[in-house]
């Protein structure tokens, strides 16, 4: 079973190859992405078995889960997924056949998303010190049934929202890919926003059980609210003609920035400004 550095390295290589394949508009990219997600799932499962808890604690494990969430979002929201299983006559109908530009856009978004998943794995392996990667005994505060639910929903939600950011980037960077990128951006936000909301809801229940208050304006809580507000704003503006296209793409990119800051920047901010947070450990 793939585990430890071998598993994450193999998954990272798969994601990188998937990104390259998608950049060349090759359908094998989806298979490589799926292989990477399967290997990373195996690596996380192996770590969980060794640690005897859900591998969703600390920066390293969340980075792996975030990368898995990103890859799963790319696979689940792939517009080409399942098309081959449909009847050939249906696929041949003009209305259902995606245009060349749409296919180009979808591949470009998949490439950017898979590259992001690979970057997250690279950060986890190379950017974090060894003690942060080591399996630590589970602290009593994290020994809760809400851990996999709250953090799992966050990892999946972050993954989908990162994909929306990647779609925004593609929209801004490549004129010819805009149609497919815009559609995927909307689908990714439609998947990520409810998952983020679910994560906040589950976090409220956990916070009430652990600390006796479901909302305390903790630094991480506030930054999650900021992220949530970015996507609430996105959802309010998405049907407004003036906001469609470039502005929404920038907003999706800003949302991805908020997601990454909530994950990585909140700790830095806490140290820089001298803030306390119950979410930093």
């Amino acid at each position: 079973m793939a585990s430890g550095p071998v598993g994450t390295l193999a998954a990272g290589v798969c994601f990188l190859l998937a990104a390259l394949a998608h950049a060349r508009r090759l359908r094998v990219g989806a298979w490589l992405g799926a292989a990477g997600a399967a290997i990373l799932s195996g690596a996380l499962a192996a770590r969980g078995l060794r640690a005897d808890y859900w591998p969703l604690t600390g920066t390293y494990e969340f980075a792996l889960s975030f990368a898995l969430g990103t890859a799963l979002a790319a696979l689940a929201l792939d517009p080409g997924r399942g098309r081959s299983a449909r009847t050939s006559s249906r696929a041949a109908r003009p209305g259902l056949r995606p245009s060349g530009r749409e296919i180009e856009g979808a591949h470009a978004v998949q490439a950017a998303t898979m590259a992001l998943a690979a970057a997250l794995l690279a950060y986890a392996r190379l950017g974090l010190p060894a003690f942060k990667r080591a399996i630590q005994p589970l602290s009593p505060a994290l020994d809760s049934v809400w851990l996999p639910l709250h953090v799992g929903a966050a990892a999946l939600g972050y993954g989908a929202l990162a994909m929306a950011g990647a779609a925004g980037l593609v929209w801004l960077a490549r004129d010819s890919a805009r149609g497919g990128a815009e559609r995927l951006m909307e689908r990714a936000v439609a998947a990520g926003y409810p998952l983020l909301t679910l994560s906040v809801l589950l976090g409220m229940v956990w916070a009430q059980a652990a600390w006796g208050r479901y909302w305390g304006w903790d630094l991480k809580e506030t930054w999650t609210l900021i992220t949530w507000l970015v996507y609430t704003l996105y959802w309010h503006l998405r049907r407004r003609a003036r906001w469609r296209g470039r502005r929404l793409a920038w907003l999706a990119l800003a949302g991805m920035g908020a997601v990454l800051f909530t994950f990585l920047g909140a700790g830095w901010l806490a140290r820089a400004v001298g803030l306390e947070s119950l979410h930093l450990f």
Partner: protein
Amino acid sequence: MSTATRLLHNLWRALGSTRLAAILLAALLLASLLASSFPQMPANPAVHERWLAAVALRYGHATRLLRALGLFDAYRAPWFLALLATLLLNTLACTLQRWPRLWRALSRRPIAVRPDAFYLRFAHRAEWPVPSLADGLRAVQNRLAGRRYRIQAEQRQGIAYLYAERGRWGRAGTLVSHVAALLLALLLVARPALSWQESEVILLPGQARTVGHGRDSAVRAGPLTIDRYPGGEPRDYRVPLVVLVGASPTMTRTVRINHPLTFRGVAFHLQAYGPAARVTTPERTFDLAFVAGQAQEVALADPGLTLRVAVQPEGTAFFVEAIDANGSLLGSGAVADGQQVEVQGTPITFTLSRYTVWQVSHDPTFGPAVGAAALLLAGALISLWVPYRRLWLRVDAQGVHMVGTGDLDDAFDALAGELAHIRDSEEEEGETDG
């Protein structure tokens, strides 16, 4: 309509507009971003002075200005609350304005028969030929029904008119999430008045403490047990907690982190622990909690001296000083756990123990807040994943003319393409079957 009425009407429309909602959401986002950049004052007023003194070391002369701007208590500052209140009003106005339109859309019987000019209004339009009215109508109806559209058809003067829609209740998603957001915001506003919280409540083993806040109950904590991993790291903290009503124990539970005891709406959360001591003299027993490592004093009437007791950093022994009535040091030394020492002929025993720190809270808004958040999630899911699509079709012997509105975008072209090629695919399927 008079000018004043028109002005009020326009103001009301603006108050419930999506544009204002977007501006307020952006403002709230920026306000939260600003607030998150400054340390926030703890809720406990007893520590405010000490906290402000520590903050002043960091911000120097700017401290007074930042405090006056409310940046150290941003989430309770008037400007933040005003922003929240305006967003609340905006959501309320939006909900009230949308409700009648939504109710009409959901309850009225749609009109299928439309004049030709009606079909020119829409951006989504498609036309395709059919061999005959009957064939075209049957094929279109079958395919739309297969795509879960609700169809209403009428025929007039050799022309069939169809109205088809799906995801009618998807329109209610926004309303549901807005009502939920209103409820959440109201709960957030009402929370300080309805709930209370006491942090850093210290309990020594065996010590009872009344709950207060008009309750007739008290709690008594037992000793803290720490389960450890083989490497010595803490695995679990456990404290037996007894709820007393009057003098009689009513409820006993072992409280752990994440597993509070809740009695009549009051929850007791184990937060932390620290070193404590039991000092036993022939006359009485003293329980001391070394909060923040501070030394504690014990006044002994007989032989008329004061003991200053400190716990050593590793928490395995004490350091004791004996001071007479004049403040002169009589003697000092380390004392081991369980050791008995004699001070001026009085035997005194020192025993190590642990105090526990609790958070006691009563928050009746929690259940409704979770319900509102779940409703918000349900509303978002409906709004995001149940597209509301409406189609009008005019079918005659020459062909089909279809227009559509709602969450269609590219789906309209896809559907039109699919409907226009029904005959082709039916023929293909027939050939395959044959």
